[in-house]
């Protein structure tokens, strides 16, 4: 059973249905016991970093996230669920994250040089963009390099360890679009909204031991 953490942010139903569509069993839950007993865990999330962290704290889920990751079982962060794993975010001032991975979350605003974009690029980065695989990763099994996935975000992660970088994507600049560190996998894009290839990623995740 895969536990999809429900902390009042994001399109949980879509994540659950996408997992079920590839044959996985998934439960949307905010019960720490259910999260801890699950075979793997998904931390989704859309919205603002600060609100997400506040909700995780309010629902008493921070500890369950940390323990799940420490237990070594497969852990998947999606979009804000990726960003939350890092030390802090610059969204609305400096907001501390879960501090699982070293690095920060920064905004596109002011980062995209005009010389690259010609005209200013739109923020949020919204739509289908390609991901370049930087490191072999079981989740990208059967996924061709430079495949398109669906993004919607204004901030991105800057990991301290280059070893943690699984894929990058170009949007004015090259930014980190997925992470892999031991049992932690995380995407800036939305596999649950990325049609067939997104389903392949979720299937690969659901098959991890």
């Amino acid at each position, binding site marked *: 059973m895969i536990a999809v953490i429900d902390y009042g942010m994001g399109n949980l139903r879509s994540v659950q249905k996408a997992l079920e569509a590839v044959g996985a069993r998934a439960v949307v839950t905010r019960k720490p016991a259910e999260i801890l007993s699950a075979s793997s865990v998904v931390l989704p999330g859309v919205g603002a970093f600060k609100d997400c962290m506040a909700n995780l704290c309010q629902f008493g889920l921070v500890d369950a996230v940390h323990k799940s990751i420490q237990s070594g079982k497969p852990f998947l962060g999606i979009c804000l669920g990726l960003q939350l794993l890092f030390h802090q975010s610059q969204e609305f001032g400096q907001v501390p994250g879960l501090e699982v991975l070293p690095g920060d979350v920064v905004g596109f605003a002011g980062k995209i040089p005009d010389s690259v974009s010609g005209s200013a690029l739109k923020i949020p980065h919204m739509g289908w963009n390609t991901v370049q695989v930087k490191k072999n990763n079981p989740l990208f099994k059967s996924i061709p390099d430079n495949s398109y996935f669906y993004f919607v975000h204004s901030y991105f992660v800057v990991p301290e360890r280059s070893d943690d970088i699984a894929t990058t994507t170009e949007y004015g600049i090259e930014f980190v679009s997925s992470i892999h560190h031991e049992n932690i996998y995380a995407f800036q894009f939305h596999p649950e*909204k990325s049609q067939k290839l997104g389903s392949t990623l979720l299937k690969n995740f659901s098959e991890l031991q």
Partner: protein
Amino acid sequence: MLAKRIIPCLDVKDGRVVKGVQFVNLRDAGDPVEIAAAYEKEGADELTFLDITASHEKRDTILDVVAHTAEKVFMPLTVGGGVRTIEDIRNLLKAGADKVAINTAAVHNPEFVGQAAKRFGSQCIVVAIDAKQVDAELSKTPPTLDWHDHHPDLFITESVNSPVWQVFTHGGRNPTGIDAVKWAKQMEAFGAGEILLTSMDRDGTKTGYDLALNRTVSEAVGVPVIASGGAGTLEHLYEGIVEGKADAVLAASIFHFKEFTIGETKLYLKSKNITVRI
């Protein structure tokens, strides 16, 4: 590189797609879920449902449609039409919509967009703007909106030489006196994550998007702009992207009536050096 998005739009009334859809191999051409799945197969980048259900009693039918679609189709789904309250947005997102489009409710109460963006995040708040170019002489529109005195700068004050577009509500029936370009900027400032811009002059005419309107709005705001209203040929889509500077193009009839598939559309755009997802 970020691909330009091709977005089919379905008008949904009482849970059924209206404005005939001619898909082969569909058991039921009025079923939004089946049509959504067909568009996903063709490679549509997103999908938009416009709920035109008139009666209040039947308004919840769109929630069922969204819920069933989200179970079958794994692509971004925007729902517009009749979104008036925070509760409406919550229900649509909970049912499986990724974004909601707010139109009339924003005009009646601009702060609503700010509240919605704050509660749910800008990424899911689309502001839909229906605009018509103002004739040489502005038709007299009494400022009936009760927030007029708070933002008098947003209204068209005089006839001008450069083109000006007026915001309309209720499907283009009611003029508001609001300048569409200033309105788009204000909506961005309140937290809209995207602008769905429909030319009421061009809607249904198949003569192409209002490129000047699109370009003016797209250059005025920092958020993505979806061009809508008037697409009749593939070249219109190309013009909307290149001359109208649209980040995405929305069309209904050219896809519904199978004049072109999404696949053909993308191959055409690719041949013209537009980045599309194929």
